[in-house]
């Protein structure tokens, strides 16, 4: 087996006195598509945010592509990472947010080309060309000159996906990317993500409440509750034959709420 691209060891995270992640261990293989499911407040979004360095950690250790994320070597000792180290490590990782977080003062094209030009020193011509390909992939070639405020939620989210892809990260994090969308706009985003999952060897971590999508999309599903992994396995196991009582209870509630699994 190849070296895992993400390794989380004894991760702990508290906000004040509230512990949201409590001694978490898991690994993600290169190219693996992982779905994180579980009740709200179970810590799954926090894990993505920690991997994107949007939070700090309270304890434990994370390695990304063989290097510690929140630690670095200094004079032979391991010390907490500084901004320069985090900056270097973030090159491995991209993220798509629940609320898109597009830059409202930039056009669709500029949203996508800004970071490659600034952080990778790409020429405008190259960045524009790549953005054009990405916009075509997400089906928005005709919107390059639009402002984000002129787009629907589904279109915004597809632009956000293109923006993250423009940096060619090895790992993509999707944080409840369809939760803020009107129901009729969910499909167009899911189609893009399915294509992405089948056409690239990118490692993908997905936090979602769309169980049937998680089932289609993922190689492996992690079921979280109270900051811990209760059960993990291929989607057939988690959704059709869960081993743990808590998983079964959760799925029953989801099905009762009208979702197909």
């Amino acid at each position, binding site marked *: 087996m190849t070296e895992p691209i993400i390794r989380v060891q004894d991760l702990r995270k508290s906000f004040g006195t509230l512990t949201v992640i409590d001694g978490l261990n898991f690994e993600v293989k290169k190219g693996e598509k992982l779905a994180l499911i579980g009740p709200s407040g179970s810590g799954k979004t926090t894990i993505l945010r920690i991997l994107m360095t*949007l939070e700090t950690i309270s304890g434990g250790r994370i390695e990304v592509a063989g290097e510690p994320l929140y630690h670095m070597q200094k004079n032979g000792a391991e010390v907490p990472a500084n901004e320069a180290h985090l900056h270097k490590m973030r090159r491995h990782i991209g993220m798509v947010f629940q609320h898109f977080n597009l830059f409202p003062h930039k056009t669709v094209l500029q949203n996508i080309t800004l970071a490659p030009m600034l952080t990778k020193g790409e020429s405008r011509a190259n960045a524009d060309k790549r953005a054009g390909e990405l916009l075509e992939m997400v089906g928005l070639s005709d919107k390059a000159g639009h402002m984000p405020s002129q787009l629907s939620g589904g279109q915004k989210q597809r632009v956000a996906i293109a923006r993250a892809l423009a940096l060619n990260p090895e790992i993509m994090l999707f944080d409840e990317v369809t939760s803020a969308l009107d129901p009729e706009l969910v499909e167009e985003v899911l189609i893009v993500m399915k294509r992405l999952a089948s056409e690239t060897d990118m490692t993908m971590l997905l936090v979602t409440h769309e169980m049937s999508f998680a089932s289609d999309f993922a190689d492996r599903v992690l079921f979280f509750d109270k900051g811990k992994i209760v059960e993990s396995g291929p989607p057939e196991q988690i959704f059709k034959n869960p081993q743990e009582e808590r998983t079964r209870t959760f799925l029953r509630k989801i099905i009762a709420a009208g979702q197909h699994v």
Partner: protein
Amino acid sequence: MGDWAGYLTLILQGAWVTVKLTVMGCALALVVALIAGLGRVSHVAVLRWISTCYIEFFRGTSIFVQLFWIYFVLPMTGLWSPTPMQAGVMALGLNVGAYGAEVVRGAILAVPKDQYEACTAVNLTRYQKMRHIILPQALPLMLPTFGNNAIELLKATAVVSLISLSDMTFQAQIVRSQTGNTIFPFVTILILYFIMSLLISTGMRYLERRATRGLDGVR
């Protein structure tokens, strides 16, 4: 009639001084406000500390006193002897800049956290984040209050008459004492001040429209 034309010329000469003070004072205030405002939100503690000291000092003491210090006390240190115009611009710019710095800070903090997180996710450096994402969105939020500050600065220019600079108010006093007529000079400067502040607010409204263009979907 010829006398009045002469007196009007005197007042207009003063108006020109007022305009110069206002324009240069605003320019200095803007620069200082941006530097101190960014300093207030810096991740470097020393910069935050220096900015806070500057802001609290210049907001907390009277502009009269500041002007006297710059014009009368500073030369005693042997460092610099400003001309009355330089002293006026400096006192006005530093005083109003302190208020402006808080506006800059507030506007920067008013940009949603989402935007900061998106910058991290696309791996922008702190400088790139400020320059390309945060400041362009914060600027439209600053402009209305900057307009207020500029008008405040215009009205504060009258204090420079205390250091023998012949601004509009100073000249009006001269005309009044020479002619014994109170109505003519004071009505004139009332109108002139009003026109100047009208120009400022019209200009600021134009800038606001330009700065928010695009954010509402219209380019």
